[in-house]
């Protein structure tokens, strides 16, 4: 890769956080894996970025497709293998994924299994004591997010209008729920989990931090420093925790209530 500015927000944040470190060989151009550092500690950074030349036409815009899913799994598993006898490096998933790839070839070759492999790798790294942090700098959509970042111990997001989390794009969601796009948008204003914006997502208690930055699109000096500080703090906060328990709070009251009552009934 050349030193030109990456075309995607995720690519730019990856470059900024790694001081424009070189991408590791052995990965497709759409999965950039860079070994950088965080507060003096070696750290692996991973981002999915657009690759207009991808062999898979439905995965050229930064979507997580077949190759991306399996390559993410490789990037994470390789970290685990390398660190098996030593300190476990933090892994930072830089998240800017507009969607999973929607295509015939993708379904035919089992894109669900590719995404499962990625999610499985991140979950395994988390359990193997790698601090795993998801840094949401752009879109974190649906299956793409499940494969790239949602298994992290902690999620950090930039407080920016273009940062969104959702299960489906508005057009498709409207068609599937038999509503208009305006109808979907209206519901998203009143039903917190249906909203696309990151502040609504934060209200569900799923974020460790929501970070204000001056310019989420063009990472620069103070913003990059603030994100690094937040990542460092998240690593400390993770401590010995290996599960996703930190996400369960009053923001998801029903999720808590269900678990409380299940536990009470679990043993006969």
């Amino acid at each position, binding site marked *: 890769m050349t030193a030109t500015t990456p075309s995607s927000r995720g690519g730019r944040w990856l470059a900024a956080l790694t001081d424009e470190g070189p991408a590791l060989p052995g990965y497709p151009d759409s999965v950039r894996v860079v070994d950088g550092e965080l507060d003096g500690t070696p750290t692996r950074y991973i981002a999915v970025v657009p690759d207009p030349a991808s062999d*898979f036409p439905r995965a050229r815009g930064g979507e997580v497709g077949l190759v991306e899913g*399996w390559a993410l799994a490789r990037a994470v598993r390789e970290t685990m293998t390398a660190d098996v006898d030593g300190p476990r490096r933090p892994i930072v998933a830089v998240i800017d994924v507009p969607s999973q790839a*929607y295509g015939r070839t993708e379904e035919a070759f089992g894109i669900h299994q590719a995404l499962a492999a990625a999610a499985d790798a991140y979950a395994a790294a988390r359990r193997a004591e790698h601090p795993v942090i998801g840094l949401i700098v752009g879109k974190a959509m649906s299956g793409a997010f499940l494969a790239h970042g949602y298994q992290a111990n902690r999620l950090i997001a930039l407080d920016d209008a273009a940062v969104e989390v*959702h299960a*489906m794009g508005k057009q498709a969601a409207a068609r*599937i729920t038999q509503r208009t796009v305006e109808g979907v948008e209206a519901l998203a204003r009143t039903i917190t989990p249906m909203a696309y914006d990151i502040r609504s997502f934060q209200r*569900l208690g799923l974020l460790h931090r929501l970070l204000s930055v001056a310019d989420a699109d063009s990472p620069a000096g103070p913003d990059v420093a603030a994100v690094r500080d937040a990542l460092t703090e998240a690593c400390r906060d993770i401590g010995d925790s290996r599960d996703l328990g930190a996400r369960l709070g009053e923001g998801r009251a029903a*999720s808590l209530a269900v678990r409380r009552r299940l536990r009470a009934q679990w043993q006969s």
Partner: protein
Amino acid sequence: MDTATLIARESFVERGARERVAGLLDAGTMRELLDPFERLRSPWLAEQDIVTQADDGVVIARGAIAGTAVVCCAVEPAFQGGAIGEVGGAKIAGALELALEDAEAGRPVVPVLLLETGGVRLQEANCGLAAIAEIHAAIAALRAHVPVVGVVAGPVGCFGGMSIAAGLCSQLIATREARLGLNGPQVIEQEAGVDEFDSRDRPMIWSLTGGEQRRATGLVDTLCADDAQAIAAEVAAAVAAGPEDPARVADVDAALARLARIDGDRRAEAEWVRDAFQTPTDDGSDS
């Protein structure tokens, strides 16, 4: 198969979620947790003026299969297309988390997941997605201790984030009627156009994502007829197997090598896909 056999056979697919579970468990061992009379229903559907179901479409039951302690988590496909909302998702995730605690404490409980689901319930989008991530985490962790058994039985199929959950299972059983895929046909057509994917072309859809094709490509471990007894027998065999990381999830190199060999621009047909999965190192006919 002769007519008499067909008549004697009892469909699994035609049963509701609770009845499916009851048929898998040893007689007299079923104990449902958070049953419908607890009325833990979706807070979000009610807000949108949509009729709720008292169990939110998910049945959780403890019991035994051939004497082995299990917890069954069954999605009811008839309610909201089996879509996963906050409550139903938390029921599955919570049950799996408790099974993991037990497994870690040396009291193994084998999870059996009946996954007939469209994925995230869009009316509860981010709550469903979050719950599915928690389900993934639990399945991945449980697999080190016990086999995690998945069954995809009926025509609703298994899609969205729950297809990823299916992909994470140690043992995956499917029928010919079932489909398994990330994106539902309508969504692909919406996002990529009818030329890419015609959601009304049922033969094409089943030829690429149906249970038989998934078995032929190793993305499903066992193909089973829609016969309640036969499925119960396959589930019992899977429950009795040891914990393992199936090649389908763990063999990253083989998967990337396969993708490097194929032409991503070619219009996928079932035969070509099957051929691509047959290689010296990755024999899809062997489980």
